[in-house]
């Protein structure tokens, strides 16, 4: 915690909040930052700060949240330049010189203020063939997958994604190439590539290959740095690179 932020329970913190005038987000200049002074509270999260502003200072402020406990993935925002899950981010941890700057996620159109339209983000999960595709029916016996198998352990590494969009907002390649699938969609694809029950491997590899897919990743690892669930996203994309290249060399791509 930096010295100039008032301790919890005393004083106020100066918060700059993005107020949009268009869908472009901070980089486009379609809007401006508006300052609010918010009282410090013990164990105060960034979401608490935004909620305080909306309930007590300006009811027109628009933002999105649901569970408040880091499960639903709907409250991600850019806090002092870094995308974060605001419900699990303590003010103590992220304030600088007693200030907070809160902006909508990057790389997604702004609906209003801090709420972004996440359609593209989830459409890309579908484009990366993020749906399980099995062949068993309820008349068949259970598929047996050993928890110790290498494939199942790869799945374990990526399965806890909450779909918050922090990785997508942080990724430079998404910014440069708007059709790039992004880390979350490819992490999902990687968990399915490692799902031994899945039948759509070939189509999925074709969907994630090339310049709009895993091969555009430059291993910046910003997604992996920022993921609130600490998923090894860049490693999942590297896995897709290896598997698709092997498929290419075997003539299966």
């Amino acid at each position, binding site marked *: 915690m930096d010295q100039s932020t008032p301790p919890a329970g005393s004083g106020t913190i100066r918060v700059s909040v993005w107020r949009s005038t268009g869908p472009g987000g*901070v*980089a486009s200049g379609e809007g401006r930052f508006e300052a609010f002074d918010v009282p410090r509270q013990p164990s105060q999260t960034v979401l608490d700060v935004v909620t305080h502003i909306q309930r007590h200072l300006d009811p027109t402020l628009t933002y999105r949240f649901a569970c408040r406990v880091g499960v639903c993935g709907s409250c991600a925002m*850019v806090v*002092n*330049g*870094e*995308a974060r899950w605001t419900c699990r981010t303590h003010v103590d941890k992220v304030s600088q010189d007693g200030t907070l*700057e809160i902006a909508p996620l*990057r790389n997604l159109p702004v609906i209003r203020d801090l709420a972004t339209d996440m359609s593209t983000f989830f459409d890309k999960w579908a484009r990366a063939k993020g749906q399980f595709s099995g062949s068993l029916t309820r008349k068949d016996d259970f598929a047996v997958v050993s928890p110790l198998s290498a494939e199942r352990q790869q799945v374990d590494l990526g399965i806890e994604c909450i779909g918050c969009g922090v990785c997508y907002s*942080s990724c*430079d390649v998404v910014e440069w190439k708007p059709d790039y699938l992004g880390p979350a969609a490819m992490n999902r694809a990687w968990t399915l590539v490692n799902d031994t029950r899945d039948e759509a491997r070939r189509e999925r590899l074709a969907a994630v290959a090339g310049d709009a897919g895993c091969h555009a990743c*430059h*291993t*910046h*690892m*910003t997604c*992996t*740095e*920022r993921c609130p669930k600490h998923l*090894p996203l*860049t*490693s999942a994309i*590297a896995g897709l*690179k*290896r598997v698709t290249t092997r498929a290419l060399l075997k003539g299966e791509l």
Partner: protein
Amino acid sequence: MSAKAWRNRNHPAWWAFIVHRVSGLLLAAFIPLHFWALGQALSGEAALDGFIDWTANPAVKVAEFGLVIALAAHLAGGLRLLMLEFLPWRDWQKSLFAVSVAASIGAGLLFALNIG
């Protein structure tokens, strides 16, 4: 872009990317010049010597030092990328950027010491 937006990128792997990209661009610009210089030998040893004499200029020596660093950095950064892309991830790979920087500076210094 607001100054705070750069905080998003301030971590070792992103700096490794910038070093790789800048050194790569520098080398891509330099290599045709290098080919041209060696091509001087087609006009005989004297022509090549004429060019080498020009490189005795201190400014050129500084540029050469920079190019050796760029080459070593691109090599080390490239090996780092190949390991990250083709090997299963291990914790020690987080140190690869530091190792790359050390190796590049080492190669640059070795070149600088020998040049004098």
